[in-house]
């Protein structure tokens, strides 16, 4: 959809801060991201999710207690670009790595950042074992239904009908199998205390997702068990569509199978 020029309104100068009394409520790059510039594609949902995550860590006052554990995918561009401590894991291995960090230093808050290729393909087993163990870590899944980094191939979460590099006519159950609904699978495990699924395809979803991330980290702090937030993100490049179509495409495809909302919350309410 293209918008037309709003009627009757004047253009505002946006090159410099206003000269009237005001306060900054959002300041370009979030303070915990070192360098705003990155090589992710136009319209990519991953930086949006990253912003929410680091804002949550800052708002909860956990900046000096947090270790983030990164998987391998496009989001790895942020693993050397944060002002929180980062441990880079191999493709798929983050949940076990987070387990090691947390067990060795239980006072830390451990959050993994992984894509669907990383977590639901290469590392599904580690995710599920970590969840079953009730490990007090938070795993965050950036789910775009493709291996973005390697060129947009189908992953284990690609929904039926979704376009990817090797399913240009849409994923077909007969040819390519069925998608895995990661959050629902995790919720099935008794060790999982909090499981939710958000998205970053519009401002409302971004705000909801941020609340989920906050709750997940709080659950980790409570010691109630494993917490998990899946975030549906746009990948216009891997979906082979235009950036402005991506939010709607997400709604029509991924979000119709990977249903949004809090899937499970058996942790005590936050203090």
């Amino acid at each position, binding site marked *: 959809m293209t918008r037309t020029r709003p009627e009757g309104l004047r253009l505002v100068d946006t090159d410099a801060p206003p000269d009237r009394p005001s306060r900054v409520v959002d300041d370009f790059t979030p303070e915990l991201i*070192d360098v705003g510039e990155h090589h992710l594609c136009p319209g990519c949902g991953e930086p949006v999710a990253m912003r929410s995550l680091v804002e949550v860590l800052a708002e909860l006052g956990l900046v*000096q*207690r*947090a270790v983030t554990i990164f998987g391998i995918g496009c989001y*790895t561009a942020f693993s050397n670009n944060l002002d*929180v401590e980062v441990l880079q894991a*191999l493709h798929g291995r983050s949940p076990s790595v987070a387990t*090691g960090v947390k*067990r*060795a230093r239980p006072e830390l808050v451990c959050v993994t950042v992984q894509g669907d290729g990383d977590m639901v393909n290469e590392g599904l087993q580690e995710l599920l074992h970590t969840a079953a163990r009730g490990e007090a870590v938070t795993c965050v899944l950036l789910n775009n239904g493709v291996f973005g980094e390697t060129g947009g191939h189908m992953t284990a979460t690609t929904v039926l009908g979704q376009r990817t590099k090797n399913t240009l006519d849409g994923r077909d159950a007969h040819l390519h199998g069925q998608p895995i609904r990661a959050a629902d699978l995790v919720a099935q495990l008794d060790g999982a205390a909090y499981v939710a699924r958000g998205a970053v395809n519009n401002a409302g979803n971004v705000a909801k997702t941020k609340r989920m991330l906050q709750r997940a980290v709080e659950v980790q702090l409570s010691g109630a068990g494993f917490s998990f937030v899946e975030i549906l993100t746009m990948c216009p490049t891997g979906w082979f569509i235009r950036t402005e179509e991506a939010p709607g495409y997400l709604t029509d495809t991924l979000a119709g199978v990977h249903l949004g909302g809090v899937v499970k919350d058996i942790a005590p309410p936050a203090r």
Partner: protein
Amino acid sequence: MSRRLLEGSEAIAEAMVGAGCRFFAGYPMTPFTEVLEHMAKKLPPVGGVCMNAESELEAIGMVWGAAATGARAATGSVGQGLSLMQESISEASLARLPFVVLNMARSQADYFQATRGGGHGDYRTPVLAPIDVPEAAELVPLAFDLADRWRNPVLVYGDYYLAHTSQSVDVGTRPPAADLPAKDWALDGTSGGSGRARLVSFLGDVKQRDGVGYDLADYYHRVGEHWADMARSIEPLVETRHTEDAELVVVAFGSPAKFIRYVVEELRAEGVPVGFVRPITLFPFPSTTLSALAPRVRAFAVYENSAGQMVDDVRLAVLGAAPVEFIGGLTMDSSAFGIGPDLDVRVLRSRVEAVLAAHDITPEEHR
């Protein structure tokens, strides 16, 4: 330090705990299982953590995480389990993570895997191969020191005999070497928000402040230099016996070397000019010990419980200056857990004697 009669698997566990290891993760596989069981008993009382990891990949992942916090951490398996860990070991070396990996091997055929880095890339890991239980108790703390000094995984290569032999051994706390570098790189959360939050990664060790992305060319180059430095700097450990005037030098490592050493002592007692060299560090290999002997001996004989792997390192050290005869070969029983009929002093003696005969080496008094 107290002196106790301990089975090798327990002595190794005791030595790990004594060396300050506070995190262990493993997945059962005979004869590594025994070490895992002991660690599960010994770590909790000292405030450590032992994880019954759900697989080998998860075990090394956990150790990766624990080591990144600066904890002394270890995992292990048999060579087969280590095969599964090769990606992690290689990249952990790039990420400069210090931890110890035990290979309670089922033969000596994992020598290449251990010494050449079975994984991808140029990395190497120091490898320590104890001959018996008391030496294992000595080498385990050294393994942790080497890991911390070089920020690199270190392997300890044992076997079924080591795991299941009980010996009198000194165990107790062995503090880390006093001159180890501080672990100021280790993650503890505190550097967050400083503008220089720590990063532990196989892609680079500095966060970008300008420019975009990792520069792998730069990072690989620097780590490559570091590996070369490590290989040059670690003093190889080696045991030699009777090499001063030996005409035949027999080379062996690990438990089988105990059989070979016995054969050499027997022959020496009978006046045969035979010597013994035992690499204790398999990497770095004690090449100079061998190359120094090469001009003076008539031959080398190499025993390994494998089709012949270390024999390459002996040849690379000797470089044709003396003949190198392989007298090993894989030997195992039907279980393949690591016991073999050839590991018998009489069998090995006859092999050494065949080399002696071929090179016309006789007891001194007979010449």
